[in-house]
């Protein structure tokens, strides 16, 4: 069974990557299983300087989904490079640095700060809905997507993947903008902006009022966008949004994703990623297919 995929030059032992923000820097999950069996890990979103993030409550449960407003709490790029990356590199899995900034200069400095860093891929988060400064603004207008991609790419030594926001009218415009800006891949979707209200207190559940919706609830929207984007760009697409099982992952692969990310499902079940890998394998076996390549983009529509 050949699960190997090639993501813009990066070889992943299987197409399952832990999604940014749901998996810390991997250590906590390594207590449950050897995280070397993952295709890759996209680490918690990094910024140049450390960030405390938003006040709690930062999470609200919704029907088959959840809202979060963590707001990029992270130790900052240099602490990541010195403290976390070396530990992560002991594991045999691709490491993806997920990075965000508030200004174009921030992004440029992030790219420079990552020069020489032993990460396999950089994932440019221009779509985080939970930070006030910048963040999501870069991810909405195609011209901005192209600009920030171009600026980052100029200083970026690693293959670059741009993570797209679903809070747009036509996500293919932004995917093409990222491609035009020099992205080597795109990943989607980040969270849909949502809200929950506590009717007893008459207040929003999240201290931040709104948050990012993720989990099974968003899967139909994510799958539609991955399908549309895969048809619109030539660079590879990494699909995510609500994947809980191998069957879910197969839907995204059929829709044209080269690899998938598993986010919220890690919160429901720390064993989610290995279960997704197992599920893909089982599907391929049941259909007598020799490898995952035989299903990528093979939707008959």
């Amino acid at each position, binding site marked *: 069974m050949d699960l190997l995929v090639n993501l813009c030059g990066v070889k992943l032992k299987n197409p399952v990557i832990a999604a940014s*923000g*749901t*998996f*810390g820097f991997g*250590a*906590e*999950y390594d*207590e*449950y299983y050897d995280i070397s069996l993952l295709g890759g890990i996209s680490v*918690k979103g990094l910024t140049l300087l450390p960030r*405390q*993030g938003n*006040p*709690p*409550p*930062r*999470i*609200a*449960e919704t*029907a*088959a*989904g*959840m809202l*979060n407003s*963590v707001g990029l*709490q992270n130790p900052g790029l240099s602490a990541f490079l010195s403290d976390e990356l070396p530990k992560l590199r002991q594991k045999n899995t691709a490491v993806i640095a997920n990075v965000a900034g508030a200004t174009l200069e921030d992004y440029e400095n992030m790219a420079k700060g990552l020069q020489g860093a032993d990460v396999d891929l950089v994932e440019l988060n221009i779509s985080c809905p939970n930070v006030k400064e910048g963040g999501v603004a870069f991810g909405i207008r195609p011209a901005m997507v192209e600009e920030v991609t171009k600026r980052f790419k100029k200083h970026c030594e690693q293959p670059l993947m741009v993570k797209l926001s679903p809070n747009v009218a036509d996500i293919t415009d932004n995917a093409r903008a990222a491609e035009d800006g020099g992205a080597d891949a795109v990943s989607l979707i980040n969270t849909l902006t949502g809200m929950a209200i506590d009717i007893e207190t008459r207040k929003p559940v999240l201290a931040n009022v709104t948050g990012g919706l993720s*989990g*099974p609830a968003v899967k139909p929207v994510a799958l539609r966008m991955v399908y549309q984007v895969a048809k619109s760009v030539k660079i590879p697409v990494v699909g995510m949004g609500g994947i809980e099982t191998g069957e879910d992952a197969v839907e995204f692969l059929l829709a044209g994703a080269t690899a998938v990310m598993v986010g*919220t499902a*890690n*919160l*429901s*079940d*720390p*064993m989610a990623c290995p279960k997704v890998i197992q599920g893909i394998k089982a599907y391929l076996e049941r259909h007598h297919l020799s490898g995952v390549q035989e299903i990528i983009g093979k939707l008959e529509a």
Partner: protein
Amino acid sequence: MKEYRAEILENKRIAQDIYRMVLRDEGFERALPGQFAHLRIPDGRHILRRPISVHAYDHDQRTMSLIYQIKGEGTRILSGMKSGESVDTLMPLGRGFWVPEGTKEIWLMGGGIGAAPLFEAYRTWGDKVKAVFLGFRSLDVAYGVDLYDKAAFYVATEDGSFGAQGYITDMLDRLLEKKRPDLIFSCGPVPMLRSFKRVMEKYPDVACQVSLEERMGCGIGGCLVCSCKIQSGDGWSYKRVCKDGPVFDLKEVDFE
């Protein structure tokens, strides 16, 4: 810690909207006082687990008792589960209560459903636990008051329907004027913990540990949603209730 499909041995109403659930799994790892279990709600709509403190843990029998109150949909669904069914359980999670060397006397102070986790501390360090203070809203929602047979036991209800009338923190305060332990373990609603903190400012040599609650995602330290404000040095930082806690040094906790 690990993921288990634990069997329900008992799931019984013990007070108004309060249930005791006893779970067993041959593979259970030993749970320590103040740690918690993270239970999956067995319907498909609720994707987040629910954190519930260990009330009592028996490693010989590999059984864990939990006491929980029906608050919303998740706990309501849990309360409808039957013996023989199984619950997807992560345990034991978090950092529980700890006993510094040289500790001779421990008191326990809890309110409402926060009384539940104190019992395992009593079971574990019973020889040191000399006094237990429990506060409840009223008799209807009081539970577990007959468990502390070897310690001085104080109980208060807000409406006076059981034990003394008033707040248990006032009762504690009056006793502290006469007598001090080395350490107090506490757990309860935030308003109670706030006044507990105020009371304890008068007795700075008594070490206090408090078990906190915050809405959780993963429960294992990976998602950073369960943050609480903890003082460190001059400033503060957000710590994870699930991994850095749920038990913290009372002095460091900022209840805002």
